[in-house]
């Protein structure tokens, strides 16, 4: 395997663990993502995808955990309205992050960068 292929493989691995961190392997997925990032040299495609993964997950962490946490704090644990907002918000926004990470994964498989609209190539 030449180094290009190796990089591509690591790139899709990064995209995969970004998705896994958002779903069934929280925290563990992120640690692996950091390791891939460490091993990558800047300017390479695996670097590119591990950075996207890290950014996505940090952003998701803030948008989901922090914002939900704030909602609970401000709304009060015993108020039904708190849960109306938290559950709907968390479920929907979480799903959006998963969909985004899925698209990133698919892009990483072809070794291209993100860019461009899906409907017009």
């Amino acid at each position, binding site marked *: 395997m030449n180094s290009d292929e190796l990089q591509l493989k690591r790139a899709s691995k990064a995209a995969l663990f970004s998705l896994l961190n958002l779903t069934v392997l929280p925290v563990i997925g992120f640690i692996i993502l950091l390791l891939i990032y460490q091993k990558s040299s800047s300017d390479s495609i695996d670097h590119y995808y591990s950075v996207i993964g890290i950014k996505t997950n940090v952003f998701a962490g803030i948008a989901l955990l922090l914002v939900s946490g704030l909602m609970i704090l401000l709304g009060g644990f015993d108020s*039904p*309205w708190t*849960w*109306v907002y938290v*559950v*709907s918000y968390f*479920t*929907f926004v*979480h*799903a959006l992050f998963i*969909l985004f990470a*899925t*698209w990133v*994964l*698919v*892009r990483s*498989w*072809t070794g291209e960068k993100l860019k461009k609209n*899906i*409907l*017009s*190539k």
Partner: protein
Amino acid sequence: MMKYESQGVAKLYFIAAIGLFTGQILFGVVMGLQYVMGDFLFPEIPFNVARMVHTNLLIVWLLFGFMGSAYFLVPEESERELYAPWLAKLMFWIFLVAGALTILGYLLVPYAQLADLTMNDLLPTMGREFLEQPTITKIGIVIVALAFIFNIGMTILTGRKTVINLVLLTGLVGLAVFFLFSFYNPDNIVLDKYFWWFVVHLWVEGVWELIMASLLAFVLIKVTGVDREVIEKWLYIIIAMALISGLVGTGHHFFWIGTPDYWQWLGSIFSALEPIPFFMMTLFAFNVVNKRRRDHPNKAAVLWALGTAVMAFLGAGVWGFLHTLAPVNYYTHGTQVTAAHGHMAFYGAYVMVVLTMISYSMPLMRGQKAGNQKAQVLEMWSFWLMTVSMVFITLFLTGAGILQVYLQRFSEDPLPFMVVQEKVALFYWMREVAGLVFLIGLILYIYSFFAKGDEVVFAED
């Protein structure tokens, strides 16, 4: 533009499907209003009547949609004309007349009288959710289904066999087989409920997924030009996961109906895996669109295909998972949370896959490769209006459901059902507004078929 002339019978089926879809939505809007203005149309059209019209129209038009899709797809995949086009036309009219009579029966006579008129006592099957049809209508459905399966089965068996048409056939045979459980209606309520799910669950979370995946695969091959080998591998693994998770996953309906406790575990674990096939459909659709070999002029069809994958994942996968674990379902069972999920899942998976097939095939049956510019723009607008309003319907019902769960089931001092309903009325009003937007989207959708405009320019072939 069609490869085989007999594919054209699909057009009849699709027109009927869209017509009945419109009826479904009109009654949906009526019910949405009855939710907040209880006496609306009472006693002429009581809620339960509106509801059976709404849900039965849904099922019937989806069946029209599946049949039309199969009639379009199978000749092309099998590389031969339909075995008996006349039979397809005959069955169309029989099904349409039987369906229309049944709906009129719901609306024009009291349900108990309809039961008498159709001699329900000989073989009582009526009066169960989604299976409200008179026994004689059910028998009619079986006959139509058999003739249909015979027709496409013979086409496939005497033609080219592809993974796509065989998976589709398996799904359709499964649909017919599991419908037979609708004739079993024991006095024992626990048994009744247990086997009722063999129709409902094993349809939407079993064999219908086979139908959906094969239709999606077909359209994706056509619009992306991606290699069949790749697509078939995906198809197999998706339907494998659907059945591996979905069969025992039926257990998520056996938590609170007097069935053994082991279902709490089995149902929770296996149904927690059910999002996987829906997620894989998203991955699959994203992947082949990303790897497309050509840009098909029918952009609307590509949009519908991607939309199906995404919305089925949201409605079935995400909103299904939300309430599928027994400890959660203990509180949410039979609340507006269920209704939220039911709407987005049915829309995202089955409504949208049928509309995808229609979007791809209708222009071909009308002698064009794709609709004209204006028609496509309108169709894409209708896509967004219907899809976004369905997201809002789901969110509002989820909000209503959470509040309902809290006030009626979770709180220290639970309130009566009707009291709670008044407290969440705001959500029902918002749902109704979103429902009206959905209706506007649907009207626009129908209008798009008649829009005139510039032909699209083809990049290749």
